[in-house]
């Protein structure tokens, strides 16, 4: 029997194993030797197996390329760092972006005088989708019109409504008075922040996103 307990088949099947010294069963080796003595064809097969093995084992081997070990360890380190980054960056990145954008947007809204007070339901408001009751606009304290049915009629219409809403907000916010002596980078910064705020507000109005989660709004914009 072989190491994996399968029975022996025809003698030719065992020739490779005989050449490679993989048959440990003494009785089987003796049987094969007897057969080889009687059968020239089988003997020729055995010799051919030996010759091929000899040729292959005589092939020169190459050295591993220089610094391969260093490169492999470098690649491992890089991928480990990447994996760590995947875990932490989105969380930190999303949180930082949400806080920064909301803060900036809110600041500009205060400047433009459009913010009343943060409504109490702000903190527990649903974060997206269709709500049972019309949500309260956290900025103005008024009821946001529920236009979600318009979205179900098609994405193009949805985008058109969102675009229209965004244009309105952008026009309104363009009236924000920028400090006259502000440096160009600050003016640019305020403009970018204002855009982010308008996107966020558009999503809040057109998708019933009452939560001030700017990153979520950005994701919704992105998905469209």
């Amino acid at each position: 029997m072989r190491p994996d307990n399968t029975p022996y088949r025809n003698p030719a099947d065992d020739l490779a194993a005989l050449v490679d010294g993989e048959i440990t069963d003494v009785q089987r080796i003796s049987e094969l030797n007897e057969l080889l003595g009687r059968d020239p064809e089988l003997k020729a097969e055995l010799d051919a197996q030996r010759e091929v093995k000899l040729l292959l084992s005589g092939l020169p081997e190459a050295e591993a390329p220089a610094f391969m070990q260093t490169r492999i360890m470098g690649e491992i380190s890089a991928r480990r760092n990447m994996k760590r980054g995947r875990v932490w960056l989105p969380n930190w990145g999303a949180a930082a972006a949400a806080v920064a954008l909301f803060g900036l947007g809110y600041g500009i809204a205060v400047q433009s005088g459009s913010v009343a007070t943060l409504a109490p339901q702000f903190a527990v408001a649903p974060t997206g989708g269709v709500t049972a009751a019309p949500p309260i606009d956290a900025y103005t304290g008024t009821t946001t019109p529920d236009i979600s049915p318009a979205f179900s009629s098609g994405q193009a219409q949805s985008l058109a409504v969102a675009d229209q809403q965004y244009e309105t907000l952008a026009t309104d916010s363009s009236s924000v008075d920028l400090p006259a002596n502000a440096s160009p980078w600050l003016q640019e910064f305020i403009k970018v922040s204002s855009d982010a705020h308008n996107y966020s507000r558009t999503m809040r109005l057109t998708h019933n996103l009452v939560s001030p989660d700017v990153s979520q709004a950005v994701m919704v914009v992105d998905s469209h």
Partner: protein
Amino acid sequence: MSRPQSSKTEAVVDTGEELLVRRAAAGDQQAYSRLIQAYQSRLYNFVRSMVQNDELAEDITQESFVKAYFNLNKLKEPARFKSWLFRIANNNTLDYLRKKKIPVQDVDESVRESYVDASSPEAGAIEGERSAHIWAALGKLKPEQRNILVMCDIQGLSYAEIAEALGVPFGTVQSRIFYARKKLKEHLDTDILFGGVA
């Protein structure tokens, strides 16, 4: 030429290999670095024999070691690291060969040149030609036949290790080696090779 079994480096590594594998699995990069050192030549030569291209062999070998590192926790028996590593390299290589459909007779020139012995140009040229011929014949085999011959006759793996590396029974290894050698012999030019050897 030194065969892997007689390598002094490997003998030293073998004694503590299981420990190194356990330490590497626990995140010890230095331990894994030592494992790479012990196996990089063998794995590189195995892949190189399969793809017959130096640069590709380097890439696939590197990827195999990296993949092995990130999957070390899946290796249940550290003592079987060698066959497991060859299994990863073999799968990577076969995947590559399947995707790229490399022409079997396209032997990389740098590989061919590596067989020419510069110290004795004439003898080196003959030896180099012979080796290149064997190499080309090996390249004509199906990858599934080539890998088993390279593992057995060039890398010196035992049938049990090959069976583990390929995930097939011992008897299948035995049979595949027999038929792969037979096929290789058919591809070889007996006039040059066997006449020269005798």
